[in-house]
């Protein structure tokens, strides 16, 4: 029997009710964990850190779901928490910007993983993104990978749309330059 499809509003209502809190939490994680994980992973690079920050993000949602007023989309709220947690971690770990060796997959076939022959260009691309200033990197990732609108990114990063467009434009230029040079 297929599971009924829940809207974000319903998930939030379940989360706010102590009786159905855990059910709401499972539904929320199942819907957003991969998206949020990859958003964090692109920022912090290492899997272990991304796992910790992902858990911290959802624990915060579990504990403070009552404070969500519904002024933005649920996904925007999640991205905002995840982004803040990642930035906090990045500030603690300045070495995160260093080149990270790409480990061999434990078991191939994960979604989004690249075969070895395509690896080089993808690695270069990630390298180019990592050398961007923090704000440009965030805007680029949210726009390019997560395909969020500028309005949503503005809510996540607390920035005006025009500034975000400028950031995105400069980010693209720098990435293109980096790829040409390397």
């Amino acid at each position, binding site marked *: 029997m297929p599971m009924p499809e829940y809207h974000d509003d319903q998930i939030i209502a379940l989360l706010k009710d102590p009786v159905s809190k855990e059910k709401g939490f499972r539904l929320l*994680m199942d819907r957003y964990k991969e998206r949020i994980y990859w958003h964090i992973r692109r920022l912090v690079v290492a899997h272990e850190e991304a796992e910790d920050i992902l858990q911290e993000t959802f624990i915060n949602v579990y504990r403070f779901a009552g404070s969500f007023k519904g002024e933005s989309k649920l996904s925007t709220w999640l991205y905002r928490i995840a982004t803040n947690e990642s930035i906090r971690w990045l500030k603690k770990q300045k070495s995160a910007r260093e080149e990270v060796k*790409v480990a061999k997959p434990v078991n191939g076939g*994960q979604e989004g993983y*690249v075969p070895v022959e*395509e690896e080089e260009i993808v690695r270069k691309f990630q390298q180019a993104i990592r050398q961007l200033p923090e704000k440009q990197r965030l805007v680029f990732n949210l726009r390019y990978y997560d395909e969020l609108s500028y309005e949503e990114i503005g809510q996540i990063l607390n920035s005006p749309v025009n500034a975000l467009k400028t950031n995105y434009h400069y980010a693209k230029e720098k*990435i293109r330059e980096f790829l040409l040079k390397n």
Partner: protein
Amino acid sequence: MEKEFKEIGKKMPYPVPEDFFENITEATLEKARLRERSSGKRRLLVQWLAAAALLTGVVFTGIRMLNPPVKEFSAGRVEPLEIATREAIVAPQPGTVVPEETISPGKITNSGGNSVIESPDTPVATEENSESLEDLLASIPDETLKEWGALLNNDPFFEETEDNAQHEND
């Protein structure tokens, strides 16, 4: 998606451990439960401590109000220290009954065979202080006095005054 990066797409060069996404939900839920439980305990402890501090404050204030201190000090005012002087220690306190022969100058009222000192306005002289210079000199042997005289004559720091010179001439 940007046409500039079409050939790259959204592929990621980062591997993810097997079954990571399958297990992360339950692992996170377990952590969230623990965190909420421990934060609940911490909140309870803080509430208990606050209540205990408040109760202590109330009890202390009550005790202070029921038993006010004997001497009130006004804020910013420095009280002079009471220094025990020799006279204060030696002199009898007002109202003290002392034998007649040890009485020194002061306000004295007779009370039977003894005298009562009412209020000594000036430091009261003691028996030792009242001993005269003549009595002191009389108690010193002549040899000792002569030795002191010889020392005085040989003392280079002793300034010779007219009185001293006249005394020597005598």
